[in-house]
């Protein structure tokens, strides 16, 4: 029901927005004093409220990083939980300023939906999870013909699933829900045999099930799922701020700037580190972007660098314990690579 409401709201907003008045997102955000950040309705490690109601996860922290760049204060964020179906309308209609919600970057979303993805904050791929106790003989996705598969509607997952079973000439029985919690509950109750979503998500969801040890994630990865934040098209300044926040997180990790040592690093001998942290004389890097010159300092102070964000939310410092893998920096054999800040 809620997505309809948002759909109507979106349609109405599109209808009633005065066509001429379109102040830049940065000005709007500064005027209201916070960033409205679209997150998931609860996916451990990416965006989920903790026991105090604070949003935790790599996607939530990314919005905090942008807030730190804009305001110098990472707490000036308000979160809007969105279902997979609601997310794009919410961004298009201006209800949120950033969509940071484990969303796969595809060409269709970049072109026909009027979005701009700023990069890939997490390289993922779609996998399958089964209850090994109930299905002892199954150890490959190719044995799943005839299974009932739980999946969230309105996702690339739903499309990849159809493609994969068709390509392998297998039958399946889709059991489709709008909200992640509904899919979790249905899988836990045994309504379906298989749960499919991004593999990182499967590890997170497994922790929330009745008896996590019974469930195994099958080895097959059936798709590329580059997850990243997106903004609206037509506002280059805001797009650049969000994109370079992501690059700053990566560059900080590459240069060894951490939450703990960022103040010492300001006096570093390395000209590159000084430049990144805005300590160069007469620097205009930050102001050209539309933020203050110590924006990288603010970002790292608020959330740490990319590696710290990863470890804290999904990596070794979290219950998920996902290895860096292809999400390591390019210098360590991964895919995360940022252009230089100069």
């Amino acid at each position, binding site marked *: 029901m809620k997505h309809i409401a948002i759909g109507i709201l979106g*349609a109405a907003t599109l209808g009633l927005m005065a*066509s001429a008045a379109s102040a830049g997102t940065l000005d709007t955000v500064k005027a209201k004093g916070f960033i409205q950040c679209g997150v998931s309705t609860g996916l451990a490690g990416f965006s989920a409220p903790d026991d105090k109601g604070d949003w935790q996860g790599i996607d939530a922290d990314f919005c905090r990083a942008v807030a730190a760049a804009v305001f110098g204060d990472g707490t000036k964020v308000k979160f809007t939980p969105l279902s997979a179906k609601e997310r794009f309308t919410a961004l298009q209609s201006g209800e949120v300023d950033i969509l940071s919600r484990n969303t796969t970057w595809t060409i269709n979303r970049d072109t026909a939906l009027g979005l701009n993805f700023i990069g890939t904050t997490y390289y993922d791929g779609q996998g399958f999870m089964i209850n090994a106790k109930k299905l002892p003989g199954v150890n490959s996705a190719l044995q799943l013909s005839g299974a009932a598969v739980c999946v969230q509607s309105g996702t690339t997952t739903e499309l990849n699933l159809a493609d994969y079973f068709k390509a392998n000439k297998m039958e399946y029985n889709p059991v489709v829900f709008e909200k992640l919690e509904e899919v979790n509950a249905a899988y836990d109750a045994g309504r379906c045999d298989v749960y499919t979503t991004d593999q990182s998500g499967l590890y997170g969801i497994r922790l929330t099930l009745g008896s996590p040890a019974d469930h195994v994630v099958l080895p097959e990865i059936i798709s590329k799922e580059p997850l990243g934040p997106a903004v609206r098209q037509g506002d280059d300044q805001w797009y650049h701020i969000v994109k370079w926040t992501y690059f700053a997180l990566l560059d900080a990790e590459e240069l060894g700037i951490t939450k703990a040592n960022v103040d010492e690093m300001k006096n570093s001998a390395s000209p590159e580190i000084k430049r990144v942290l805005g300590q160069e004389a007469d620097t205009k890097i930050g102001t050209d972007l539309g933020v203050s010159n110590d924006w990288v300092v603010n970002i790292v102070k608020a959330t740490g660098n990319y590696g710290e964000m990863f470890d804290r939310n999904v990596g070794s410092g979290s219950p998920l314990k996902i290895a860096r893998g292809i999400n390591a920096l390019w210098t360590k054999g991964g895919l995360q690579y940022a252009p230089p800040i100069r």
Partner: protein
Amino acid sequence: MASQEILREEPSRGSFVNDPRIRSLFFQTLVVVLLFGSIWWIVQNVIDNLQRLHIASGFGFLKGRAGFDISDTPIAYTSDSTYGRAIVVGLINTIIVAVAGIITATIIGFIIGIGRLSQNWLIQKICTVYVEIFRNIPPLLVIFFWYSGVLAVLPAPRDSYHLPFGSFLNQRGFYFPRPVWGDGSWLILVALVVGIAMSWFVARRARQRQMATGQQFPVFWTSAALIVGLPLLAYVLSGFPLSFDLPKQSTFNLTGGFQVKPEFLSLYLALSCYTAAFIAEIVRAGIRGVSKGQTEAAAALGLRSGSILRLVVVPQAMRIVIPPLTSQYLNLTKNSSLAIAIGYPDLTATAGTVLNQTGQAVEGVLIMMIAYLILSLVTSAVMNVVNARMALVER
């Protein structure tokens, strides 16, 4: 006379501004211009904003490949079908659950409504409790009650309940044998149609005879014999062409047979139970609205209590019942959009998925609104015809 004529002429003699005809014309034109002007402004703004935000628009997307699967497909549909077809599948699913729900809700509603007026204390109280429970719970909770409370706690496919006639019940739904029509089975269908036609004819003749002579004829038993007997005879004569595809256990699920999924079952049961509570109250009000003198007069003529209800009270009560009943049917149809909470692929769910996969929010919502509007208007039209037939014919 003269003073009246003066009064009639007076307004037009006043100033142009005070002429009521011109004033009304002016304000009506103003309202129309404002209304269409604002509609035009909104439409124009939508188009402008969509272009400014670089969002594709138009209905061309309906011809694109859908790429996702739907669990309940009453018409042929695969992931290769178009978005338009996906929406049609959803629309048909909505119609199926609405029609099934309306029929069941009406039957339960009439039974409970009449039961509330029963002389039997127990029946009356049970019916009252039913109405008070289902009328006071939001329909979404009733749906969750059936889905999570009743159907989800059934056993897993491996430990299904075995029911008579080779059917099974488990948490994946209700499975029953699917008839497979062999060669010559068209004869059975023809026999069924002939049986129904003959029953209708017999009923008509019986009524005419009763009108003319007062003699009655056992219409019910004759019709039952015709409708059941003729197809049975055809079945035997054509050499038993009908066989059954039985549900069987496989690795994951039961395969074969016909499966009614729990999503459909819970939505259908919930909508039926919920709406039946309101229909019961409408029926009770209708029966109460028939004057007591009618019952007494019928009794004085020597009719039995069943006949009084069937021939005297209910036909009159129907005139009171049908208009509010229409509203309940419309409510049921619209409430079926709650299906999304449990994953039944109705119009809202499939059109919503299309909306999301294509990003065409304005068009998607428009399609949904028009589809529900048409469904409601058709329901109203049908009920208006029924109402016109039931209305008091004044001679």
